[in-house]
């Protein structure tokens, strides 16, 4: 089975979102970047080095937080982070200091002496993040860091990832299967589909250009989209509350007003330029059809 094929991209400074459905090859790609998987062909350069040949010289310049919990529950957070700093070549004295500093930085200053098994899912995710940062890597790979988090914890974690990629100056790649997450936190996006790069570029570029018209209704967005499609507009409704119409859409406002009157739909809002990346991608697919 081919997990990844013909993948080519360059990582920019800041936060890059690696987006793809489950099984699209995100974890495989991260494993290749880390040099723990051997590609069947092609070349891979990470920080100017071949991951398979560079060995520990490259790995100690990369921070990695895995998708699932991979830590013994009876180890204290500061000990675990210190241990993995040592495993990446930081001398013991510095490792002790840095473990405390980085745990403070991810918001676990008061909790750093607690065994990991007694921590909440959100706190354990932060410990994973801390051990990925403790050796001050040039590239941080975060594999689904919001897995298992409730919405509030998820937003906190994304804000933290954003801060790490901006205020603290790390180059971060965050993988996720949720477009909204990636859009919220990333400067750039790499979208994987079936093991290939389907789209890549900066979020600003992907969102830029001529804005689509976004229409929000109380209900009936799908029937409104069908009605507009019959009139020649490529409208796409993802749910029954909201639809988007890509440019060129001259005369669309009048058509929408006429349609909501005809279909007796209650209009909430209509404006250009509020589409999400998801809607933009849906619109692209609709246009391609």
């Amino acid at each position, binding site marked *: 089975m081919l997990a990844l094929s013909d993948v080519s991209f360059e990582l920019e400074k800041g936060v890059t979102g690696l987006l793809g459905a489950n099984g699209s090859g995100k974890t495989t790609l991260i494993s290749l970047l880390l040099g*723990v998987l051997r590609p069947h062909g092609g070349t891979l350069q990470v920080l100017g080095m071949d991951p398979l040949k560079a060995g520990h010289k490259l790995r100690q310049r990369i921070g*990695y937080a895995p998708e699932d919990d*991979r830590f*013994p529950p*009876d180890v204290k957070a500061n000990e675990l982070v210190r241990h993995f700093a*040592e*495993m990446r070549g930081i001398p013991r004295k*510095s490792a002790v200091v840095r473990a405390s500093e980085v745990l403070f930085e991810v918001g676990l200053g008061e909790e750093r002496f607690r065994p990991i098994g007694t921590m909440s899912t959100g706190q354990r995710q932060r410990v994973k993040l801390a051990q990925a940062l403790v050796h001050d890597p040039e590239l941080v790979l975060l594999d689904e860091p919001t897995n298992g988090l409730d919405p509030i914890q998820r937003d906190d974690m994304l804000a933290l990832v954003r801060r790490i990629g901006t205020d603290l100056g790390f180059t971060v790649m965050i993988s996720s299967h949720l477009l909204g997450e990636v859009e919220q936190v990333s400067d750039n996006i790499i979208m994987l589909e079936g093991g290939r790069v389907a789209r890549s570029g900066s979020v600003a570029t992907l969102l830029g250009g001529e804005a689509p018209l976004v229409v929000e209704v109380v209900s009936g967005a799908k029937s409104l989209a069908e009605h507009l499609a019959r009139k020649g507009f490529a409208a796409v409704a993802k749910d029954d509350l909201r639809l988007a119409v890509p440019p060129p859409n001259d005369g669309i406002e009048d058509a929408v007003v006429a349609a909501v009157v005809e279909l007796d739909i209650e209009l909430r809002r209509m404006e250009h330029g509020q589409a999400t990346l998801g809607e933009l991608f849906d619109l692209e697919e609709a246009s391609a059809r």
Partner: protein
Amino acid sequence: MSAQAQIADRRFQHYLGPRLGVAYSFLALLLHSVRWVVGLGRSARYKIVPFIVIAIAYLPSLVLVVIATVAPPGTPLPGYADYYGFVIPSIYIFVALTAPELICPDRRHGTLRMYWTSNLGPFTYLAAKLAAIWVVLSIVTVGPVLIQLFGYSLFGQGPHGLTEGLWTFVHIVGGGLTLAVFFGSIALAVSSLTDRNAFASAGIILGFILSGAALGILQGPLKAPAWVALVNVNQLPQELVNRIHGAHGFTTLDLPTWELSAAAAGWVVAAIAVLAYRYWSEGRR
């Protein structure tokens, strides 16, 4: 404001210090592993059992030293190789507790992948764990006999002269390390077959007991040749230690010393091969 007042920059600082290589991480993991299995830096419940077993292993040496203090010079006392006859069950229990604890939690919790993304790879990780089990087992295979030597020497029952004393010391360390390497390597190989400490511990104890029982059947009713005794992982290393100390212990292992040494080395190499295969395949996942 005081003249000594300072403004400290408390923001996150990037690391500008040295980044050490594989050898440092290897030693750090070795030290961490040794401390981990004897419960140092962990809560009291992880210290109790290792310290009880270590105490049991040391107790006979202290008793022998006490006997040496009261025995008239020249009284025949148990030799250094004889010591293992008293403590071999403690060594089995100690190895069955420590070897699984060294590698099973990392496999069970999936921490191995974290090591693969550090300075260490599967084989350097494995080498650190092997060195750790050898060091840990030396606590009970070398330490008590050195106390016995020290006690005997102090009370006039030890070797005569510096040269003989040094040779005895070398034999004790060599014999103890032989046991540590032999038992430690096999126990670690057995532990690598499962993620569960309890299964691994049971497997180690059963393996040591069953190899003795199997030998009894092979050499008894089945009348197998003498070399079959080399499969006995229970008596083989003990007999090798006897030979190191210039004695013959087990009549069932009445084979030349080179054959015993080759068989013991074969067992250790086989155990390391099992470990290497297990971690090589783990590294390819």
